């Protein structure tokens, strides 16, 4: 699995803008201008549309399942052939009016229903992990960057340690050792635990740059407390970085959740998850490619959409900053 934060971080460091000079003396672009620039970007619009579809799918899952007629856990023995090892009956893994995306081999569960419910898992975990990571990353990055010295040393060491850690191995080990209840919350915590240093490192760097700027001294000379300087003076200047970084982090976490589920330590069955569906489709892909194709395509497109979206937002934010 690609644990994307590393890559983001690497890019952030060398790719320029977010690390560059976040608070360059440019007028903040008005929201409307940004929106217009965004809407002109066809790729960004297409990706947002797809993400919106997945979100709606996740939200309306019970409704959609009502429409399609099969719940995500419902077996349908009639749809599979017991004599062929439980192979779905019919073309494309049993695609038809009854089962829109076909059925799972073996038990005949409806793939459409499982995709729809799987979207819930993917989105919830990725978004929550992003939120938690961002909070941790921003706070620790700000604190380390602003206070410097010993505080910075401790936080930096911890970050170094977390980044040196083989996170994937560890996540799997911890998740498989822990009891299965609250697996989703656990996933969020574990993913965030290893994810925050990548954002924090960038926030720290920018904070150190921003701290050099005279408006910080000016606030200090005006009697601002450290907390006020950090959250009222410095934080607003990091907003575009944070937006860009978090958007770019979401696909990483979607991938991580699916990857962990793929490896069998993600959400607990029978809760459907895309990664898990892909894992169980592995033995079947030669005889029933549709079973692999649907979750694979949904997952790939979701990750791609978030990546492209993040990329576009980054470009727009950069051009907004570059133009005076």
């Amino acid at each position, binding site marked *: 699995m690609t644990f994307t934060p590393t890559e983001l971080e690497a890019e952030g460091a060398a790719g320029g803008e977010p690390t560059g000079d976040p608070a360059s003396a440019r007028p903040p672009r008005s929201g409307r201008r940004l929106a217009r620039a965004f809407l002109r970007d066809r790729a960004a619009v297409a990706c947002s549309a797809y993400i919106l579809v997945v979100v709606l799918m996740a939200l309306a899952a019970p409704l959609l399942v009502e429409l399609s007629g099969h719940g995500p856990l419902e077996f349908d023995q009639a749809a599979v052939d017991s004599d062929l090892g439980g192979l779905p009956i019919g073309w494309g893994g049993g695609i038809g009016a009854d089962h829109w995306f076909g059925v799972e081999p073996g038990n005949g569960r409806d793939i459409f229903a499982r995709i729809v419910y799987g979207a819930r898992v993917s989105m919830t975990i990725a978004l929550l992990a992003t939120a938690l990571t961002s909070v941790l990353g921003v706070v620790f990055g700000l604190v380390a960057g602003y206070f410097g010295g010993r505080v910075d040393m401790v936080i930096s060491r911890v970050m170094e*340690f977390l980044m040196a850690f083989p996170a994937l*191995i*560890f996540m799997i080990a911890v998740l498989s050792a822990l009891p299965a209840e609250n697996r989703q919350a656990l996933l969020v915590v574990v993913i965030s635990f290893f994810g925050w240093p990548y954002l924090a490192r960038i926030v720290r760097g920018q904070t150190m740059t921003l701290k050099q700027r005279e408006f910080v001294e000016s606030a200090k000379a005006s009697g601002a407390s450290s907390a006020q300087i950090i959250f009222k003076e410095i934080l607003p200047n990091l907003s575009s970085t944070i937006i860009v970084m978090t958007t770019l982090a979401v696909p990483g976490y979607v*991938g991580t959740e*699916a*990857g962990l589920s793929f490896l069998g330590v993600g959400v607990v069955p029978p809760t459907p998850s895309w990664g898990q569906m892909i894992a169980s489709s592995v033995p079947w892909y*030669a005889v029933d490619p549709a079973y692999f194709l649907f979750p*694979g395509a949904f997952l790939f497109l979701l*990750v791609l959409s978030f990546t*492209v979206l993040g990329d576009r937002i980054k470009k727009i934010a950069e051009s907004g900053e570059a133009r005076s």
Partner: protein
Amino acid sequence: MIRFLVNRLLGMAVVLLLVCLFTYVIFFVLSPDPAVQICGKNCTPEAIDRIRANLGLDEPFRTQFWTFLTGLFAGRAYGTGANAIECAAPCLGYSFQTSQPVTDMILQRLPVSATVAVGAAVLWLLAGVAAGLLSAVKEGRFADRFIAGLTLTGMSVPNYVLALSLQFLLVVTLGWLPFPQAVPFAEDPGQWFLNFLMPWTVLSIGAAAVYTRLTRANVIETLQENYVRTARAKGLSPGLVWRRHALRPALTPIVTIFGMDFAGLLGGALITETVFGLNGVGKLAADSITKNDQPVIMGVTLLAAFLVVVGNMVVDLLYTAIDPRVRVGSAT
């Protein structure tokens, strides 16, 4: 320089110690009693006690951890009397499942992981830098946009999805490639290459995409540097400006990132090795996790962390060698 080195080594030791401690605590606290597992199905409380004593599990945590650390550097012995087993340094303990020395298990798997890692790294470095350069040269043109699309795709495709798709297409359907097996190079270079081609591709695609973007961004940024303008003002040919003044500064950061990524990879590509059934360190990790084989998990984790930390240090030193600003102190 020596001072820098010493500092760096100390920092590295601290991080590794933290990794050790953290891993040890987690497995110590979270894991089910390994003695019960080892004891098997016809177990008595006395047998469990004996196993615990043999493994040193009856000692307080601090003593256990200390024994583990000394085992790493000086070796240690398990059990007593006729059945005592000497474990030479660096001793990572014995697998609970197979009773193999963990160090040997890892060493046996390392060549496969190294092959996978080196091949993938070469592939992504070459492909990434080449595509990045092309993209930078053709900035804004079709080739650039095309590559940008490819890199986004490459970054987004989860590698197990890619692995399975490739295997389905190239092996099952078209039969162009064999099911990957760890064929040693010396045995059959051709087969070796064919067998490892897919793992390399899968493993390198995401990184190649990132390197493409990095290279492109760095080159474009470097071209805007004042010293590039100076070079042009001196009347240097574009080729010379590129070669001397744009590439070196643009590629230096990539070298550093490459060092870290590569080190991370050496510790085992868990998913790729698992999906393709290659018996590398990554697969060892995955297998021992399912078997809750704590010493092996610890060993692999430590190895991976060690490689990353060492990789970081090598990169730092390399950076010092490459960048005169770091190498030679300021005169003022």
